[in-house]
């Protein structure tokens, strides 16, 4: 599904290398987690994959089902099946959540040569999916993320994910700023999308999210590289001992 090879990335504005050769391979239906200390390059990985400005790829590649992601515009990556759930979802006053969702869904369908969903069809699907995430009609009507609580914003991200039906979902610290109940709700939403085919990359600081979204593989990232990979037990090890031991091990 997702093949990242020797990905090296610097900041555009200053001569600073953030990713120093990331290798990562995620198969169909797999859930991978990336953990790591602050500044290790986790979020940068998600931004570079989804095409945010401000980064320069100096070496390496990232392919989604064989297609070179780094060569595409952000919207083309989305249409190809990549989805990034933002750590800080953006507020867009004056644009209704529903309008935004429908524009996004239909833009992707158009890009893939599919027919656009009619207003009626769209409404039916969105209501059903919103209900599962406890997103009420009012939240759908309000401007995108404006006045939403932290939990509501994250649930709204998962709703977008559910509507867009991506192949590869990247969740950037989706648990940040969430209380336990909100985290459970978000995790349930994510788990509902696990269908054996869709793949996930879950970026997080804390093991607790991984209690709810069970990963197949856990990677530890530090200083712009993946320094260790293993099973779910690796996350528990970090939870108990912190990153210090791992960092020393590989230093």
């Amino acid at each position, binding site marked *: 599904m997702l093949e990242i090879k020797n990905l090296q990335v610097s900041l555009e504005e200053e001569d600073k290398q953030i990713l120093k050769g990331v290798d990562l391979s995620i198969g169909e239906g797999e859930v991978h987690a990336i953990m790591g200390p602050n500044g290790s390059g986790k979020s940068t990985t998600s931004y570079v994959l989804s095409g945010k400005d401000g980064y320069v790829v100096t070496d390496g590649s990232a392919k989604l089902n064989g297609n070179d992601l780094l060569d595409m515009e952000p919207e083309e990556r989305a249409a190809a099946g990549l989805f990034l759930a933002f750590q800080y979802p953006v507020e867009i006053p004056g644009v209704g959540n529903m309008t935004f969702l429908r524009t996004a869904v239909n833009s992707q369908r158009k890009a893939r040569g599919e027919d656009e969903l009619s207003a009626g069809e769209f409404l039916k699907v969105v209501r059903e999916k919103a209900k599962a995430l406890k997103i009420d009609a009012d939240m759908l009507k309000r*401007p995108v993320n404006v006045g939403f609580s932290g939990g509501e914003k994250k649930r709204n991200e998962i709703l977008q994910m559910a509507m867009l039906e991506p192949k590869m979902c990247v969740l950037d610290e989706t648990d940040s700023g969430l209380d336990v109940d909100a985290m459970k709700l978000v995790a349930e939403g994510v788990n509902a999308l696990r269908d054996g085919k869709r793949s996930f990359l879950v970026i997080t600081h804390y093991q607790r999210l991984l209690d709810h979204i069970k990963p197949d593989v856990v990677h530890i990232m530090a200083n712009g590289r993946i320094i260790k990979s293993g099973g779910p037990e690796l996350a528990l090890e970090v939870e108990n001992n912190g990153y210090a031991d791992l960092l020393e091990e590989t230093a």
Partner: protein
Amino acid sequence: MPATALTELDREITLPAAGVWGTKSRKDALARLTAMGLPNRRDEYWKYTRPETLTSATPTPAAIFDGNDEAPMFDAIDCLQITFIDGVFDANSSEDLEMAGVSIERLATAMENDVHWAKDLYGTLETNGQNPVQRPLAALNSATATDGLVIHATGQAAKPVLIRYLHQNETSDAVLHHVIKLDDGAALTVLETGPAAARLNKVMEVDQGNEARFNHVRTQGRDHARCAVTHIFARLATESRFKSFTLTANGVLTRNECIIEITGDDAFAHVAGAALGDGDFHHDDTVFITHDAVNCESRQVFKKVLRNGATGVFQGKILVQPDAQKTDGYQISQALLLDDDSQFLAKPELEIYADDVACSHGSTTGAIDETALFYLRSRGVEKDEAQDLLVLSFLAEAIGEIEDEVLADEIQSRLESWLKRHRS
């Protein structure tokens, strides 16, 4: 009436023929104009907008614009339609000037009538509005207006009055003056659309009685080469409500002034505008709201989207007189610059002499929010469309000032079309 040579004004002013009171009103206006002189670039109030093309003896010719790719503005709304072509009332394309709750006449007809209510109003609010800031082009209008409407709302108007201003002559110079009086409790919606002429000088005086409601939505056409100066003078009595929204897309020069005096308690005045400019576009909103009564509210919400060297200007003032306690004043002027060549010049002002008031004002100039743009694109929305959505997001507060949903939707759809046509 012979032409009056005015060396002070560097141009000849001809007063059109009118009846007894009309002639007196015109002479008075000319005297006001002569005393203050035409505006020039050295005037503080014209610091950001060059008045030459508005004051010259003849207008700069403006090419006729064919806007037939869109349905006529407000076409779907049931209105009493009145048409002016190049500033002249056109009976053929206007409906009969008859509607329940309202009486409507042409200005010339009213002026020929020795006894007429408009006699006490024509030029009166304009005169009030000359202090403390002079507005010579409004006085020029009162002196020389050749046509216009005199509207008296005595109750709830059966439907909106739609005034369409067609531009068919490349050198037309229109001077229009409307006088609108709303009796106590009367309600009237006036819609205006179109460029009117190569050059337009328009004044609208609105006098509202107690609890009278005036609702105004206008669009100034899509012509690129036309220029216009317009003034709205409104006087608000107790518990009256004034709402005005203007959409300006294109136009080489536009100066829209709105001067409101709130004289009755518990009244409110909301003025809003959205301006879209691409290239040779200069748009100036100049607003002056005077609070002279207790517990009144005023809002000024102006948004401009500018690209390819377009210029936006905002001069807005809230003046709160000593007795105007419990005033709630709000003023926001914002520009979204889509490139580095465009500019926004703003002069927001508050002048407050009462001590128990809540007034806020803000003015910002910014570019498209890159993070929001990326957010939308990451969801699959193409860059152009994502940018349009963010522009509409920026304009939303101004559009939100239009109360009537049908009218708001109409304006919104025109904005969307304009943005689609002007993608980079």
